[in-house]
């Protein structure tokens, strides 16, 4: 594998990644907190109420970033899972398995906030339409990955088995994303678009974009925290972990 740059190779070594994650994490936490404060101020205070939904639309500032993260994290988990299955890299196994609880948390938030938003706007908490059902399947996929991982005595073997399930489940991602176009659904279509103009006023749009960025930093911080803990217990016999336990374990 000569095409892998040296820094990438070094970063994939657990002690190096542990230090890297420990340095990166506080910055990500700080940025996530600042951006969340700015985004929530914009979303809850300065943005005008929607002409149809009134103030109920403000749930968008947590619902849409969470929904986007639920798909984004699955994508990251699939890439790490692919690397874990093919090259059996310990760090990739850890990243894939530690992504699952974060993804499950965001998917759960998406479903619950969507349900709470649905009641005043659609008149129902839940309906079995394409978008809602496929997002629920996404939650079950995350829970299945977590369950399969923990079902194995050998954790590395469990990680690779669960990574395989992750790869099979990738088929659900386009279904979630395009469900609002492919089927008639109660759920509204895409409001924010990467390419082309978004269908939203600037006053309402910028807090949403800020919140989407904040959730990325939150995810990075959470993943760093989970992976570094996981590496500690995976490598507990190694010298670098013993030295760390000597300093911080008392």
């Amino acid at each position, binding site marked *: 594998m000569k095409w892998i740059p040296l820094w990438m190779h070094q970063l994939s070594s657990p002690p190096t990644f542990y230090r890297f994650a420990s340095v990166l994490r506080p910055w990500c936490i700080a940025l996530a907190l600042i951006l969340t404060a700015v985004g929530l101020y914009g979303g*809850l*205070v300065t943005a005008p*109420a929607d002409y149809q939904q*009134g*103030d*109920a639309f*403000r*749930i968008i500032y*947590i*619902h849409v970033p*969470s929904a986007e993260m639920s798909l984004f994290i699955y994508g990251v988990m699939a890439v790490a899972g692919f690397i874990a299955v093919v090259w059996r890299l310990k760090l990739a196994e850890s990243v894939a398995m530690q992504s699952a*609880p*974060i993804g499950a*948390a965001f998917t*759960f*938030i998406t479903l*619950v*906030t969507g349900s*709470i*938003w649905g*009641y*005043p706007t659609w008149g129902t908490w839940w309906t079995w339409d394409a978008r809602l059902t496929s997002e629920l399947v996404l939650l079950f996929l995350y829970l299945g990955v977590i369950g399969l991982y923990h079902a194995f005595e050998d954790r590395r073997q469990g990680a690779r088995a669960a990574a395989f399930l992750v790869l099979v489940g990738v088929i659900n991602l386009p279904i979630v994303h395009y469900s609002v176009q492919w089927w008639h659904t109660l759920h509204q279509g895409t409001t924010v678009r990467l390419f082309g103009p978004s269908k939203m006023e600037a006053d309402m749009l910028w807090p949403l974009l800020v919140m989407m960025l904040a959730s990325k930093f*939150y995810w990075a*911080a*959470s993943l760093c*925290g*989970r992976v*570094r*803990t996981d590496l*500690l*217990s995976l490598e*507990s016999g190694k010298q670098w*972990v*013993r030295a*760390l*336990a*000597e300093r*911080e*374990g*008392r």
Partner: protein
Amino acid sequence: MEAFLHMGGYAAYVWPAYAVFFVVLLIDFFAPNLRRRRVLRELHARMQRQKAREARKAAQRSPSDDSGPTMTPLDS
């Protein structure tokens, strides 16, 4: 402020949604921190026990006895 909390009549929906968001993420954030402390503390305790065991063995082997072979203690 009152109007802000009232959320145009949608307070019963907006605030619980935000509460779910923050509570779930707080749990997600602090769970691995607790796990990290536990892992380090367990490892530290295991290392302490190992050190104590080695110290005991070294004390046994020290040449204070010249009365021939003795019984090995059961707790080793």
